């Protein structure tokens, strides 16, 4: 028996077998350890086929027939994952209407089902971040206080302390987050669209992402501004206008009235 084993070890096939075993082990460990992509909506072959048709009719002129991208015009979409597609298409950023410093959000061109189909097809091109599950973006499960800490460190410098948005360079800007859906917020962090950096799951964990969403949803609550009108929450510009035009105007009017003769 021992002899037989020893003989087998010297066999010509032993290295190949070992190699296969090792690969299996690595694959198995990876399957267990790797972050499992949200298995939220499994896409059917029909959906994928529809997505491909939609893509070739609406997106291929810039991104290429098989989404390989065109130099200087549009990036390759191989491996961007369904999250990026859902974000770009559901916010109306894609398809882009005109070339501009950055693609602005506009009314989406595709229905929710069409968007899903597009995302499903692009996801088949290569592995990439996929859209979050409903539970991952449920603000009621998040901790808004922790979300504020994370938001303040990573997001507030561009998106403003409560997500009202702000300017970047050369016509680019960080948009307001007041009308972005929780799923879109999650996808933006995960994929880093346009000028925005990526915040992968090691940097902002899925739980922390949900906390950020909870914090942003708090800002939309009816009593989010107990101090009264927040004037767009964009800081000194609108507040300064209010003080200089309305406040100073009232003072000048009062001074004129005091100095005028009674009739």
């Amino acid at each position, binding site marked *: 028996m021992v002899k037989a084993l020893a003989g087998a070890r010297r066999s010509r096939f032993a290295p190949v077998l070992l190699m296969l075993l090792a690969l299996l082990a690595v694959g198995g460990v990876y399957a267990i350890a790797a972050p499992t992509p949200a298995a939220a909506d499994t896409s059917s072959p029909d959906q994928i086929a529809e997505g491909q048709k939609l893509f070739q009719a609406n997106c291929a002129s810039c991104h290429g027939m098989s989404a390989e991208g065109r130099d200087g015009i549009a990036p390759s979409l191989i491996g961007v994952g369904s999250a990026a597609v859902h974000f770009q298409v559901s916010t109306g950023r894609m398809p882009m209407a005109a070339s501009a410093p950055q693609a602005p959000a506009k009314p989406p061109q595709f229905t929710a089902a069409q968007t899903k189909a597009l995302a499903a097809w692009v996801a088949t091109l290569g592995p990439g971040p996929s859209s979050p599950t409903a539970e991952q973006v449920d603000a009621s499960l998040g901790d808004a206080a922790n979300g504020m800490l994370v938001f303040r460190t*990573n997001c507030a410098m561009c998106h403003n302390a409560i997500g009202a948005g702000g300017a970047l360079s050369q016509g680019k800007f960080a948009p307001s987050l007041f009308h972005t859906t929780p799923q879109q917020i999650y996808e933006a962090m995960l994929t880093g669209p346009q000028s*925005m950096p990526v915040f992968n799951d090691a940097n902002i964990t899925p739980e922390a992402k949900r906390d950020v969403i909870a914090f942003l949803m708090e800002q939309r609550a009816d009593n989010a501004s107990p101090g009264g009108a927040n004037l767009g929450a964009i800081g000194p510009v609108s507040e300064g206008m209010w003080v200089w035009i309305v406040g100073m105007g009232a003072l000048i009017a009062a001074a004129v009235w005091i100095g005028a003769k009674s009739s």
Partner: protein
Amino acid sequence: MSSTTGKDLTTGEHGTAGSLVNDPLAVGESAEAFENPGLPEHRHRLSDASPAGAKKVERQVALIFGLSMLASIVGVWGYFAFPMDATLGNVRYSTLSIGLGLGLGMLGIGVAAIHWAKALMSDVEQVDERHAQRSDDQTRTDAVQLLKDGAQDSQIGRRPLLKGALVGAVALAPLAFVVPLVGNLGGTWNVNAMRHTMWRQGTRLARDPDGALIRPEQVTIGSVWHVIPDGLNESEHMLEEKAKAIVLLVRLDPSELKVQPGREDWSWQGIVAYSKVCTHVGCPVALYEQQTHHLLCPCHQSTFDITDGAKVVFGPAKRALPQLPITVDDEGYLVAQSDFHEAVGPSTWERQRPIRGEDY
């Protein structure tokens, strides 16, 4: 001052002042060019014309006073109606009603008083000629004499000890106020404090704010990490240390990264770390544009190019952001190789001075 010079000066002043009083418009040659138009003709108000008009004004004033009273009552009512408890809505209504009550209450008094004065009180113009500012010679000599007598009486000229003691006491008294005031300005006068941060050889890079350690494979291309030194959250002067030690970590495609001469081993496989304290006046530079690799300062729009040694490409900052040399330790965590090699933060003249006992 001798009495003769005093007299000379005042005679000159007296001449000018006198002519001003007699004819306000007589300034040099323009006296003939313009004629004093005098006061405009008095126009009577509606309230002067008839008792009914006056009565109307009276009612208006009373009404405004009444509104003021009402507002004050609303303010007091608001205090009781909205107890300041934990609910945000109550805090809001409480401050709103008290503020409006107080504001309108006082504004009403002011408006009513002014309306009263303008519409009811006499509006006939009255002229009060201004008298000469200079007092007459007799008063002036008397005043000087009084001062002299006082000085004589205090014997200050004959007793230098008292003079010295008085000056000393007056000079010392404000120190008890000034020294703590100045002393509290900074707490420390050691400008070298800006030269060193918490980073040491082997200090691990940790995630801001929770302090999780960072492995290089987690820092993917396109992502940006806001970093603090490991152990910062437990350190004694957490905020002071954090203000100096904050770092931004990004991984760049090695083909995009222009390695700076002398810093070949300061990055780790395309991962670079730069101080987040703006070299202009020290705001946290944290607006990172992923596609251009530009890092913007929110305060005055200085822009730093992360691919090229964080050099300034726009704005008022005058030098690149200091780079933190990093590597990976035995356990696979990102660590600092040393402290920054230059002072972080604003470019003050102090940082030009060589650092004593330098040891990185």
